[in-house]
């Protein structure tokens, strides 16, 4: 883990409120895993908390963050020009298990849940057969997929309005795949209802499934205990024990509040 001022080398709008920031630093760790995140500091220090942003990709000493402008903090990030520095802390948390070979894998990203997907696929594709399902409300929500540029990866897309891919959702596409293929593992990140549905399908079909949860956090390193959730293995910190969890470790997917946390 490190704490460093890194230089912004690109910060572009992908669509709607979706942005992609690329930063360059000296200490960029090669050991960071897909699913891990960084805490980005706001320049306006009246915003006392860092923003947890998922690691989108690592390319040499360059980190990529795909993020959504949701509030004043992330809105501030969208205005940072090239050449500006931003203080980042990370990599944090427990990422996806990518130590696999010869597996038939489905990766599902929904909307902002596409954030950790690029790096995840990059780490899986050479040793496994990977199918990617991307979904979102509209074309803007899935536009980032155009930047994935992967060869030999089957990509299927669903949008709520049918503007890109099929009109429907990622679970429809997953069900279709499961009819024809034996899938070993499913990885997913996206809105709560989507992950809940995916996890249920996985559990019904006895397929291992890793999901990435989101929660408001203050410290990012389990010191503040702000992001705890109730799991089958007791209280776990999304920042430290997660954000990636085995879906079966979550006590009851219904208790995951759509806004994070347990009801």
């Amino acid at each position, binding site marked *: 883990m490190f704490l460093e001022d890194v230089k912004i080398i690109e910060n572009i709008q992908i669509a709607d409120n979706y942005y992609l920031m690329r930063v360059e630093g000296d200490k960029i760790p090669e050991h960071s895993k897909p699913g891990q995140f960084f805490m980005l500091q706001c320049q306006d220090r009246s915003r006392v908390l860092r923003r947890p942003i998922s690691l989108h990709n690592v390319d040499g000493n360059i980190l990529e963050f795909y993020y959504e402008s949701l509030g004043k903090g992330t809105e501030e990030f969208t205005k940072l020009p090239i050449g500006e520095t931003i203080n980042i802390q990370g990599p944090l948390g427990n990422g996806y298990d990518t130590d696999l070979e010869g597996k038939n894998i489905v990766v599902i990203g929904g909307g902002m849940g596409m954030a950790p997907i690029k790096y995840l696929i990059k780490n899986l594709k050479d040793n496994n057969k990977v199918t990617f399902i991307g979904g979102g409300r509209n074309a803007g929500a899935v536009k980032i997929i155009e930047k994935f540029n992967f060869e030999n990866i089957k990509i299927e897309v669903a949008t709520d309005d049918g503007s890109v891919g099929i009109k429907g959702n990622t679970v429809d596409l997953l069900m279709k795949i499961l009819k024809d293929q034996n899938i070993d593992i499913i990885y997913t990140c996206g809105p709560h209802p989507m992950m809940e549905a995916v996890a249920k399908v996985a559990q019904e079909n006895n397929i291992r499934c890793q999901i990435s949860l989101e929660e408001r956090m*203050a410290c990012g*390193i389990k010191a503040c*205990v702000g992001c705890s959730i109730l799991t089958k293995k007791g209280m776990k910190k999304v920042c430290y024990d997660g954000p990636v969890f085995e879906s079966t470790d979550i006590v009851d997917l219904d208790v995951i509040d759509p806004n994070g*946390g347990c009801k």
Partner: protein
Amino acid sequence: MSNRLNINFLGKKLNNPIMTASGCFGYGLEYKDYFNPNELGAAVLKGITMEPRNGNSGTRIAETPSGMLNSVGLENPGIEEFKKIIPSIKKELHIPLVANINGKILEEYIEIAREVEQIEEIEIVELNISCPNVKDGGMAFGANPEMARLVTREVRKVLTKPMIVKLSPNVTNIVEIAKIVEEEGADGVALINTLLGMAVDIRKRKPVLGNIMGGLSGPAVKPVALRMIYQVSQAVSIPILGMGGISSTEDAIEFIMVGASAISLGTGMFANPTLPIEIKKGLEKYCKENNIDNISEIVGAAHPDGGAAYRNRLGGNYEIKS
């Protein structure tokens, strides 16, 4: 390093007056990737209760202007687990460890005080009568003068270790409560705990926090903390552990000048994980530049008499009361 920052706090020699705030530093090792925790004066560990607690459900963190709300609700593994992990923490942390203890009812406070009294690695105890995020106990004790008196008195009976009582700012007269706990044998007071507050999600038309209300911390509460420490330090003869929005060396000096003998860092570390080291260097530099031989010389410097009376009452050497 000079001895300018060495202080005698509750009879313990601390390398410097910089401590952590309970609930913001885990169990002492969480920040070790960012700085050596042994650089601190002492570490105040996450609050513990007799039984394990899951804490509050729903969203627990909300950012507010220059501050944050939390409603963690004292999630902790309970005293038995605490006893198991303390020896391994002590292997890495060679500074005094402060246990923050909590109870729902008086008997539980007494029971947990008895437990921590037996834990060799714990040198100081912080009696938390001010958590705003638990329905029973917590602030109920700290907000009521007679309850504060009772719990301090009864815990004192079973605790020979130095005891700091952490006070709630959610009261009309903080001085009254501070004097009461001093009368009942507190060796020091910690102030302030968080201010009770709330935030609303206007899109969902409901409170942001699952527990509706939470404790406000961060720079937003700093003026309140300074005011209360200023008032209390002019009324008591025991040292104050000051906290509430410290995020720079200048803030730390302000706290010391209003009467804090030591300071705790909480929310400030979330934004800046190396804050304790920055403040340590900053205080050292400040003392050097201002010809201050020891930081304790400026405790209460902002008092009308420059703090002389308070420092005199403290005796410069904060002996443990028997």
